[in-house]
């Protein structure tokens, strides 16, 4: 669970079964455990109306556990980028009564929420649970490039190469934390790089 800091920083909860006709779960690796934990308290036929989209990562851990929940649809995706077209179509065709559940890394939750926002879903209606890595998705405020899976503070922009302070300031629209040049005033000042978002 990520530490709470400033107000724009997302706060995650614990997945719980919501009233609704259809339930769409999107999870990566450890996020599967949030779904299986929730399943213990879910009504008997809950997953009959559910779709689980899962990005297991290397090793395909937890795939069997999710399949055992017998959701109406189960889709395994190799990456978030690969599931985007499917997700966009699902949300575009969705009716009232669809509930969205996001579980896993902040990058996964943020990007799935971004697609949901674009489809007109209110962010406060989405269930989220953080599991796994604290690695951040970061936008460089200077060149606008997104760097995925940032684990260090400061971090190097993978596009323009500036050394960036990874702020807690977060944009749902961009699904990213803000990175600002840490030594803009004097480039010779190079603070030590620590691995803090593990």
């Amino acid at each position: 669970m990520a530490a709470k800091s400033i107000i724009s920083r997302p706060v995650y909860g614990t997945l719980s079964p919501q009233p609704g006709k259809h339930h769409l779960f999107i999870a990566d690796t450890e996020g599967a455990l949030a779904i299986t934990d929730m399943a213990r308290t879910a009504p008997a036929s809950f997953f009959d109306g559910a779709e689980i989209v899962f990005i297991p990562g290397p090793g395909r851990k937890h795939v069997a556990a999710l399949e055992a929940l017998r959701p109406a649809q189960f889709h395994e995706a190799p990456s978030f980028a690969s599931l985007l077209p499917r997700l966009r179509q699902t949300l575009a065709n969705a009716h009232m009564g669809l509930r969205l559940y996001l579980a896993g890394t902040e990058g996964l939750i943020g990007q799935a929420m971004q697609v949901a926002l674009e489809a007109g879903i209110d962010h406060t209606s989405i269930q989220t649970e953080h599991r796994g890595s604290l690695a951040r998705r970061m936008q460089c405020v200077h060149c606008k490039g997104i760097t995925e899976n940032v684990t260090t503070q400061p971090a190097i922009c993978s596009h323009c190469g500036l050394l960036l302070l990874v702020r807690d300031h977060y944009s749902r629209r961009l699904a990213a934390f803000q990175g600002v040049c840490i030594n803009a005033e004097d480039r010779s000042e190079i603070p030590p790089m620590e691995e803090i978002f593990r």
Partner: protein
Amino acid sequence: MGITFRKETFRDDFTFRNSPEHIRRFPFPFHEDSYMYAVNIEPHVVGPKGSVLENLIDVDEHYVAEMQDRALVLAEDPLRCQSLPHMTLAGWDLLELLMEQQALGYPEHFTLTRDGDKWRWINRPLGIDDSFTFGDTSTLPYGPMEYITRQSQGDFCILDQRDGNLWMDAGMVTTQADWSLDFDIGMNFFEWHAPVPLAHEKGIFIRALKFLTNIQQGKPARRLNWTMTINPRLDTSPENYHKWGPDRTTVTPENVGDKVHLRVELQSFWRLPRSNGIVFPIRCYLIKMDELVTQPKWARRLHRVIRDLPEELATYKGLTRYRPTLVEWLSKLDDGSPTSAGFGPD
């Protein structure tokens, strides 16, 4: 007689200066010898002749140069002007407000004629004479917000009001004190203020939001905010921080008076009639220390404010690196005598 517009720059050779009359009208933001955040919001009503409040939308001698600087910023980075799709109506509201106010305050420079929805706008300082259909975006060279804010001093944020909150859903932001419209667009009032230290704990934003969501049409409000900038640079965006940041290392006891500028934002808040949005103009005024200290009261007071500023605020405002040099320079102009009440010079 109209305003004599200065030819000057806010980058490279930095030829920006205030004339003596403009020094006297500078909106000095400290009414006492210390500073802490407060919900310092008051009705935006017309003030004394010769002050920046003589008109509710102020046009001054820097108008033409500021508009040229804005065009340069936008050519480099079009993301400084953005409007989410549902904000076009609010853009028309803003166009109407700014055309009306500028034509009202400065008839020798701006003329607006209306015949139903057929409008004609003449902007003499910028050599513009456009006829268009109000509400029809295809009749203007830009969207309505971009069109009029390319012709109006200050940054502009248009806030959508819904769910008891205000949402930063459109803006023209090229003269900002280190915040990014591109990053903050779509955020609510608390989210875009999230990085501001101390004020959340004091409940400032909760009270400010309550006030702002109740603003009525025809009853705008205002407040002052301030920071400091090295060189008279309007574009102190985070986008370009790696380009202007090194300026902060160039302050020496010899050049403080010329390089260090007090940067004051006159922020006003207006309800928009059709969209029910709020427009939030952030008008930036710059004054270099050499100009400011021509008013002895301001020199004494600024010395005390900067010297005693809480560390978190000094850090947030980016003063840390040059504060000791500035305080030392200002201290020589402070004989310790009392300052009179109020903002104005003696």
